[in-house]
């Protein structure tokens, strides 16, 4: 007696279809799983046996062999519990085989027969929708997968419910509650730092990477966190992309599905695999989890050199490519990078109040840990210093500055989309060109530095709703250039 149930395994951010075949034959009672299954799949045997019995079905006292096809594909995860149980039940005639036609089943089983969600439910939903199949899974995942258009989802709470046939189909997606609270911290809560706030607005408008340099306790972290609130909500396609990555990584995707920009702040002890993705099975890293949002790297030079250098190519291309023996996996990674660092190992170089105890050689060594190519990807560099105590004490929050700034960002982004696309250099006004030429000669700006400066100036012009880049825009952008000769 044989039966086949369709399922899938996750590779990258995609669900690859897998057929679960069960063969129940007479012989010594064994329960074996073949087909390159990892430990989690092998353990399914015990969960399935217990769950089937707990749900009131019989587990066959016979030779049960489950094959996962295609055999060369490595399968991992606990999502095969449900299809294996269904295949065994179908092969033993306890449920009619007809009811599993056109259905893809994914879900983990508890010993009590309950069906639980597994990482990557969104990926399974997208594949099922594309291949025009019904998706049978845990009912707890229903409010995640309903963002996928044209998906027919059948949610199960436990496998005992399958006795009554396939569960009801859910068609209408629920309205998602958009978090109306303004994100924390509000710009209005931050005393002083007017220049840094302006930088955040520019970064939010143009998607520029920002590097804050300053002594400890000057507010770099708080400023970086405030950037998220300035970004517009995720649009429909972005929600699905970001939600998919969160889902595959096994993180709660509800916030991003509701439109909240992801903000990721990995600690500097993060490994290369943790930062850009990797491991077995491959899992998206922090860089991809921050896709469409903000990646904040505090204590930038303290990150491992390998981790920092691994950031270079994904930052340029907006995608992480992991090459494995079986092929390349691509995780999207379009982020706004905000990095913060101390000016020197002790942190107090240039601080008016404290004395820096670092030998001069340590300063340049500290900065060189990041490396020129990565620094070249930081469009805006800004020195952030401790705010005068008098300003801190007098500061009183009046209104939400973040919401005000966000509406300005929205306007500028809309303007940037509406203006005719032209080369960075062709939209320069003659006066701006002269100023840039003067500055480039005097400050010995490299070609890369000039390009970066032009990009920032273009964004500043967008914020002024100006289709050409004027002298004032170049002048402002000059203040955000990197410190080349440190």
């Amino acid at each position, binding site marked *: 007696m044989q039966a086949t149930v369709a399922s899938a395994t996750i590779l990258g951010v995609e669900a690859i279809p897998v057929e679960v075949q069960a063969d129940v034959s007479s012989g010594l009672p064994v329960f074996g799983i073949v087909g390159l299954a990892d430990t989690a799949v092998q353990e399914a045997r015990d969960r399935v046996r217990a769950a089937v019995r707990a749900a009131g079905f019989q587990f066959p006292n016979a030779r049960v062999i489950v094959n996962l096809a295609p055999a060369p594909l490595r399968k991992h995860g606990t999502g095969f519990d449900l299809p294996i149980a269904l295949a065994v039940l179908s092969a033993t005639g306890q449920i009619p085989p007809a009811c599993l036609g056109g259905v893809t089943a994914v879900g983990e089983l508890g010993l009590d027969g309950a069906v639980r969600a597994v990482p990557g439910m969104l990926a399974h939903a997208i594949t099922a929708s594309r291949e025009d199949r019904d998706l049978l899974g845990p009912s707890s995942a229903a409010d995640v997968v309903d963002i996928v258009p044209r998906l027919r989802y059948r949610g199960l709470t436990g496998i005992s419910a399958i006795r009554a046939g396939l569960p009801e189909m859910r068609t209408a997606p629920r309205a998602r509650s958009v978090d109306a609270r303004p994100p924390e911290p509000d710009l209005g809560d931050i005393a002083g730092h*007017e*220049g840094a706030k302006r930088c955040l607005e520019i970064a939010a408008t143009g998607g520029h990477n920002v590097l804050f340099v300053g002594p400890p306790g000057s507010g770099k972290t708080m400023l970086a966190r405030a950037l998220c609130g300035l970004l517009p909500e995720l649009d429909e396609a972005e929600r699905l992309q970001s939600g998919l990555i969160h889902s595959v990584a096994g993180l709660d995707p509800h916030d991003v599905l509701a439109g909240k920009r992801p903000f990721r702040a990995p600690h500097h002890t993060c490994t290369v695999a943790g930062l850009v993705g990797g491991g077995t099975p491959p899992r998206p890293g922090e860089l991809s989890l921050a896709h469409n949002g903000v990646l904040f790297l505090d204590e930038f030079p303290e990150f491992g050199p390998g981790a920092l250098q691994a950031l270079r190519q994904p930052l340029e291309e907006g995608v992480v490519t992991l090459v494995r023996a079986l092929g390349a996996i691509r995780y999207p990674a379009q982020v706004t990078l905000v990095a913060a660092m101390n000016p020197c190992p002790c942190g107090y170089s240039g*601080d008016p109040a404290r004395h820096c105890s670092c030998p001069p050689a340590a300063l340049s060594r500290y900065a060189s840990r990041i490396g020129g190519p990565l620094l070249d990807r930081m469009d805006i560099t800004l020195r952030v210093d401790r705010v005068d105590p008098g300003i801190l004490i007098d500061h009183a929050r009046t209104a939400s500055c973040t919401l005000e700034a966000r509406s300005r960002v929205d306007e500028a982004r809309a303007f940037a989309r509406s203006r005719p696309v032209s080369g960075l250099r062709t939209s320069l006004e003659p006066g701006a060109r002269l*100023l*840039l030429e*003067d500055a480039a000669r005097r400050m010995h700006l490299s070609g890369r530095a000039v390009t970066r400066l032009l990009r920032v100036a273009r964004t500043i012009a967008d914020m002024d709703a100006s289709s050409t880049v004027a002298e*004032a825009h170049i*002048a402002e952008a000059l*203040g955000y250039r990197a410190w080349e000769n440190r």
Partner: protein
Amino acid sequence: MTASRFVVRLGDPRYPRQLAETPDPPRVLYGMGDPNALVSGLAVVGARRATPYGLRCTRLFAGWAAGRGVSIISGAAIGCDREAHAAALEQGGSTVAVLGCGPDVDYPRRSADVLARMRAEAAVVSECAFGQQPTRWAFVRRNRIIAGLAYAVLVVEAGLPSGTFSTADAALEAGRDVLAVPGSVFSPESRGSNRLIRQGATPITDVSELAAALDLESVRVTPDDPARDGVLRALTADPLRPDDLARALGIDIVHAGRTLGALEAQGLIARYPDGRYGVA
């Protein structure tokens, strides 16, 4: 020919004053184009047989100065002279050619295109009457007019011996600054300009040095901006961070940032490694 002709005599109010003050001013200047273009400027002269290095230097310095409102005066000869006029025209700047033949005569022929543009947009002058054909002596004589019209003479590239030297001599006689672009010690085309430097000419190796030599920072016209002056005064007293500066002057951070950037681009202030700005 559409360009208008003009004749100015010594003593005429339109006669260039700086030229009148030289030891041997021409009695009559015949010209084509705009007589008001005969303002004092920078003479850029160099070898006819210019190297690519000489042409690049000419283009850089003449173009840079012309873009900042300095009139470029030269002799329309092939090589450096022609390049200087072309660079000035490209920048939309003012430029004057002084010829050793009638101002309506296309000589040298290879400069005819540049001369035509200058007759229309700038000025071509000579002490030779209209229609007079070029003579060797006239070209040597005209060098004193080039030097006389300018307040400084920049020698870009000159071999040894070179006609460019007569321009430099005339400049010294008229009390003009002589600037020279140094070249390789192995280059025969730069032997003359290197010797000028040894004899006391100001070496020009960078646009900022040219700006200093011409005192361009004060010449340059910038629109009145009270914030700009306030920023400069504040930074002269004490280096400040942009945030503190904006607060001290009561201006918003965007305006402060733009003013700082513009002042820094002009070399008036500098950014310190600790993020403060101070006078350069």
